[in-house]
């Protein structure tokens, strides 16, 4: 579709040549970046993933050993998978539901829509910063705001949610859900696309509110839901900063916040096991690719594409 963008209108030969040159000239920064920062390193990390490589020695070929170890005898990998999947599988649906629910509420023609939209979007914009992770540590600490509020309202003395391995991951999920705003904005844009006359026609046919929601709103929004779900899932797999700051880089307590990317970071930059970490990286790429492929395969069963 790109090639047809430029019409072949009496383009002279020399102009042609000039176009080729100009094309590559303008593309050259990207091309350089592509080879030096993407293609080369990608090939190199594939190779490194098949070696044993630390700071002190040259890479030593070990074949699929790293991958074997990951698959069969790495308890921390299993912990990281557990944490990451819990995080992805809980935070993404919760975020979607929240984003959609609030978008629908806002779409009822509330006054001050722009204000609310901005307020809900703010956390998405700043949510990945260290400051917010610091704040989150405070909110869910033993003497944090959450427990203060619980005490004031219900006289309930809450635990330290961060220091408790069975609740720490949920503080990070809460942090993710708190950032539902950007998905909500995309939902709002999607809701605006639904033609009003469909609702009018449905009302005339006697369809009630909930029926309208399930028969019109939801089906017509499925492409947007799909899009949001894919983007959020990929992002969730790559989450790093909050877990790092909240656990002081350890993924603790007892690996309960050991996000996959955090484990990868530790292997690469604290243990300097570059070969093993490269293998971990490619496993992550494969997982994300598999998830994305599955979503696209599933799309034809539930995503409603009009015309």
């Amino acid at each position, binding site marked *: 579709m790109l090639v047809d963008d430029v019409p072949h209108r009496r383009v002279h030969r020399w102009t042609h040549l000039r176009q080729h040159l100009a094309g590559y000239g303008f593309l050259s920064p990207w091309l350089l970046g592509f080879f030096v920062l993407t293609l080369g390193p990608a090939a190199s990390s594939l190779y490194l993933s098949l070696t044993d490589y630390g700071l002190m020695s040259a890479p030593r070929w070990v074949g699929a050993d790293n991958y074997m170890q990951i698959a069969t005898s790495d308890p921390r990998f299993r912990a990281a998978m557990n944490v990451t999947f819990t995080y992805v599988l809980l935070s993404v649906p919760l975020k979607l539901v929240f984003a959609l629910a609030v978008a629908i509420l806002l779409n009822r023609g509330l006054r001050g829509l722009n204000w609310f939209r901005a307020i809900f979007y703010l956390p998405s*914009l700043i949510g990945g910063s260290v400051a917010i992770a610091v704040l989150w540590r405070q909110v869910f600490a033993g003497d944090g705001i959450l427990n203060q509020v619980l005490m004031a309202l219900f006289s309930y003395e809450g635990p330290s949610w961060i220091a408790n391995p069975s609740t720490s991951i949920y503080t990070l999920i809460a942090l993710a859900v708190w950032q539902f705003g950007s998905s909500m904005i995309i939902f709002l844009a999607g809701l605006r696309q639904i033609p009003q006359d469909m609702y009018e026609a449905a009302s005339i046919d006697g369809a009630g509110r909930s029926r309208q929601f399930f028969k019109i709103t939801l089906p017509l929004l499925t492409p947007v839901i799909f899009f949001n779900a894919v983007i959020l899932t990929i992002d969730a797999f790559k989450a790093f900063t909050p877990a790092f700051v909240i656990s002081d880089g350890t993924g603790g307590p007892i690996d309960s916040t050991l996000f996959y990317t955090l484990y990868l970071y530790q292997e690469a930059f604290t243990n300097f096991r570059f070969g093993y970490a490269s293998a971990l990286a490619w496993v992550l790429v494969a997982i994300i690719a598999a998830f994305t492929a599955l979503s696209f395969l599933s799309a034809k069963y539930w995503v409603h594409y009009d015309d």
Partner: protein
Amino acid sequence: MTETTVDATGSSPLLRAFAYAAVLAVSFVMLYPLLWMVSSSFKPENEIFSTTSLIPETFTTDAYRRGWNGLSVSFGWMFLNSTVIALLAVVGNLVSCSMAAYAFTRLQFKGRSFWFALMLGTMMLPQHAVLIPQYLMFLNFGWVNTILPLVVPKFLAIDAFFIFLMIQFFRGIPRDLDEAAVMDGAGPLRIFFKIILPLSTPVLATAAVFSFIWTWDDFFAPLIYLNDIEKYTAQLGLRTFVDATAQSDWGALLAMSTLTILPIFILFVVFQRLLIEGIATTGMKR
């Protein structure tokens, strides 16, 4: 997007009141931690945990003074580092991504579709796949512990997302303008500078603001590339401050947290519409 307060589904007043209450409640819960952070940064230390009130009984900027000089290097220095890095990233992204987007939309050259497909492919590839060799390469160049690994890639259009964003916009610029310029004997360079760029200020502004915010907020790259505290960004400084103060000086920690968010907040207030439209039209992350 203009404010169209159409009553979408003919809600009854009661239902609408309920929606209003629900939205208000959600906004309050969402904003409360942020407001608490800002207000606590102006409270004396002993007041922070003794009350959930958002209004300081005693107003003091003491925590800011303690925090600003809380590390061996002043936070001012780290803010300067962050600003330099973020501004260079903005320039790099604008220059390199607009060039690539121009090549992809306006110039005809062999292999264009091929490179375009690869460019889309790089957007899908998680950075982790290239992280370690990139690090080793920059280590070899002697670039570790300098800002070069954080800045130079931006001049090589590494954030393909912005290329994509600009392509969408450039496609909307009428081709008649280029053709008229060609008739007047303008070459690709002149068309780029005299027609495309001047008409693209909205998308350039969006890309600039997002570049700044994302670079300012970035934690991972500075974490692996910067070692000396004099070279730290504000994000790294804040994280070091967490370690240094642990639980002992929450006031100072919250004050510095507030300060690191402030530049983003200002950009958010000024460019709110631009940012929200950017999200709505492209589905950009965050």
